[in-house]
């Protein structure tokens, strides 16, 4: 039996009938995407509350006695790990990846729907195991999100018993879930594109998610290796990472392990992880900017190349997280160089976003506000990255609030702004309803200005030398009194930003039934997901026939065309053409 390409098949892949098949044990990528998103956002809210508690302690020390030093470290650890892995990675790839890939490439579903379903349930299990560590004796681990040994498994660190084991087991389970999902995303992009959808006609959202998934598939094994070996160190008493060490006055049985080895493995995962979060954000923001500026993305090919280059380079910069761990100076030189090189493709992307806006017909819709906000926060976070990428500048700034401010701007605030923008952008397609514009704008300005109020002063604190990870600063002599005032102000700003999330949630939930009915293509977008016969798309996405693609994803404001957008599935009009064929740029 000859193999028939998926683009040539019109039959649905699976056919659910019962409520459970449709909405719970569902194999439909759209339902799985929503399941992923709901769990990720829920666990993200937990992490947000934890950050609020930390800020209360930092802004008003000795006021909130229920936040003791142990709790503080546990909150730091869980906040970091949840935000990076269980929220951002899961939401961008499991949520947006699942929803957008099949719709944007013109497929009926992922190529392995059953495995896709299992991926979600295993992810949920990982989340439950992680959250269960709040309820075990000793509580969750307080080792910091990097989980550096030996302290992570030694008595004295909070949660060094069951807490750290549950964290490592949960990470292992997450990686299994991610691998199952990731195999689907990559294979679907390679294999299930509809007719005419060449790789170079794919929207940049798909490119970003695709490359991020490849990075994840190759980088997460490093985390798995380190998690397995650390679990063995902690439970069976092996000495992979744990050197000869005395704890609480007693020398332990470990001998000869290498903590530095863990750091190498962790950051071999940890740095690509930054781009696992950033690349989907880059892709999505490109589409948001192009759509809402009614202009083709500037330098599409360059954008794709930049995504590939950033992906490749992200594997050779990991040790810039380890300048203070001690290394051969030539190593430091090498990693500083690669780190600065990665700024080149990243800067290309930023220029192209700005050039896309230039002379565009900019509609300041809520998704567009978030996309433009992202350009600001990403430039700020990126520039401070150049500071920290240099060994000599990094050494004095390392372990200060400058680093905290840098990574929150670049991989906290920036991707989250894109997440919000993307939710506002695709909400009409996902739910069939519009949201409240005023509430959306209030949410944007509270978030955008609020996050600046939090993180700009943190840079200053860092330059003053305020160390990170401290439970309380006390009356440290070298710090001026203003440090405490700034900390109070940051805490107030953080609480306001946290409150803005409530505005967002209120808007999203009430709009489900109070929102105006959405048309099928409210943003007049060119990409395929807006061309489905039904809104929200039904099971199988495309009705009886799969779409056929005739053009790239960015035919906006084509000279001579009746509308300012031409969807990808509209055939080429020989009189008009599209893009630059008949335009002024020929």
């Amino acid at each position: 039996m000859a193999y028939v390409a998926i683009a040539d098949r019109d039959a649905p892949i699976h056919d659910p009938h019962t409520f459970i098949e449709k909405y719970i044990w569902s194999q439909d990528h759209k339902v799985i995407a929503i399941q992923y998103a709901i769990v990720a956002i829920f666990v993200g809210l937990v992490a947000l509350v934890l950050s609020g508690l930390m800020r209360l302690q930092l802004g008003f020390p000795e006021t909130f006695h229920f936040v003791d030093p142990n709790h503080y470290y546990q909150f730091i650890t869980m906040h970091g790990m949840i935000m990076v892995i269980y929220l951002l990675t899961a939401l961008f790839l499991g949520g947006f990846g699942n929803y957008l890939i099949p719709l944007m490439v013109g497929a009926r579903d992922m190529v392995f729907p059953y495995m896709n379903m299992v991926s979600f349930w295993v992810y949920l299990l990982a989340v439950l195991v992680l959250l269960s560590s709040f309820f075990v004796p000793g509580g969750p681990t307080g080792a910091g999100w990097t989980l550096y040994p030996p302290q992570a498994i030694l008595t004295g660190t909070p949660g060094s018993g069951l807490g750290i084991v549950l964290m490592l087991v949960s990470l292992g389970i997450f990686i299994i879930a991610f691998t199952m999902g990731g195999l689907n995303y990559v294979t679907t992009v390679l294999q299930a594109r509809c007719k005419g959808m060449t790789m170079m006609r794919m929207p940049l959202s798909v490119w970003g998610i695709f490359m991020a998934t490849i990075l994840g598939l190759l980088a997460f094994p490093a985390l798995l290796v380190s998690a397995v070996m650390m679990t063995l160190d902690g439970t069976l008493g092996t000495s992979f990472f744990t050197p000869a060490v005395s704890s609480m006055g007693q020398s332990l049985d470990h001998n000869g392990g290498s903590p530095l080895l863990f750091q190498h493995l962790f950051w071999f995962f940890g740095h690509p992880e930054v781009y696992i979060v950033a690349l989907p954000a880059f892709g999505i923001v490109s589409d948001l900017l192009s759509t809402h500026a009614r202009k083709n993305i500037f330098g599409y090919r360059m954008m794709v190349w930049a995504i590939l280059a950033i992906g490749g380079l992200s594997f050779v910069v990991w040790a810039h997280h380890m300048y203070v761990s001690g290394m051969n100076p030539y190593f430091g030189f090498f990693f500083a160089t690669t780190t600065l090189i990665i700024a080149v493709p990243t800067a290309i992307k930023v220029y192209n976003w700005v050039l896309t806006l230039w002379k565009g017909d900019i509609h300041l819709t809520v998704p567009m506000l978030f996309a433009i906000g992202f350009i600001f926060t990403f430039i700020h976070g990126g520039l401070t990255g150049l500071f920290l990428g240099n060994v000599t500048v990094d050494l004095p700034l390392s372990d200060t609030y400058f680093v905290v401010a840098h990574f929150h701007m670049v991989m906290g605030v920036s991707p989250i702004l894109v997440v919000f923008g993307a939710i506002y952008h695709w909400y009409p397609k996902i739910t069939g309803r519009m949201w409240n514009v005023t509430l959306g704008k209030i949410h944007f300005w509270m978030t955008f200005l609020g996050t600046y109020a939090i993180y700009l002063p943190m840079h200053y604190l860092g330059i003053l030398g305020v160390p990170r990870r401290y439970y309380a600063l006390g009356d440290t002599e070298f710090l001026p009194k203003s440090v405490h005032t700034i900390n109070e102000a940051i805490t107030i700003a953080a609480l306001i930003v946290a409150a803005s999330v409530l505005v967002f949630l209120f808007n999203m939930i009430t709009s489900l039934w109070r929102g105006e009915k959405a048309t099928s293509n409210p943003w007049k977008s060119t990409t395929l997901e807006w061309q489905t016969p039904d809104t929200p798309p039904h099971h199988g996405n495309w009705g009886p026939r799969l779409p056929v693609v005739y053009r790239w994803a960015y035919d906006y404001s084509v000279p001579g065309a009746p509308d300012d957008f031409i969807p990808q599935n509209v055939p080429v009009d020989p009189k008009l053409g599209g893009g630059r064929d008949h335009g002024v740029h020929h």
Partner: protein
Amino acid sequence: MSNTAIFIALFVGVAAWFAVASRLTAKPWENREQKGDVGAITTPPARIGLWIFMAVVTSLFSLFLSAYSMRMHQSIGWCHLTIPKIVWFNTLVLIAASIAMQLASSAVGRGQRQVTKYALIAAGTLSIGFLAGQMMAWQAVGPSLYFIQGSPAIAFFYVLTIAHGLHLIGGLYVLGRASLRFAGGAEPIDLRQSLALCAIYWHFLLIVWLVVFGVLLFL
């Protein structure tokens, strides 16, 4: 991290191939009709999925071996492991299992039911035999927690063999399902793809094992 450097070189190679293969030089804004416009790879998804999965497993074992080599060089008191003789025998058994899988895959393609049956039984038995042999090897290197705690080389031996064994058990699960379909009277032709993929996976796991074994022996 020299192994990691090799891994990165491989990764860059694959990325470069991919860039050429996917015609990154295309100008998508020009709406000229392109020849062979479908673009999607016309290989069955399961096969592509398997290759991607094998890339993930390659990454996993490269990192394990990288860790092994770094741990060996970065610390004092490393005590070399004497590889038990049975591991040589196990290696031969795994090679035989791989050959049997290949036979099963070729026979099912030619519609030879009887040969397929015996080859499947041989592949399954040899693979389980390999796993049993590895457990006997644990007995030989140091059967208790005392040894695992005392020697990182022994601990690595356990970790590497268990990681490899778990991947083989995953393969056996898939092979078991295909064999059940075969025993239930499925036409050989319908099993062609499943067994072809199993054969690829078995060869892959054999190569992984040979590399792991080689590193344990010579590094």
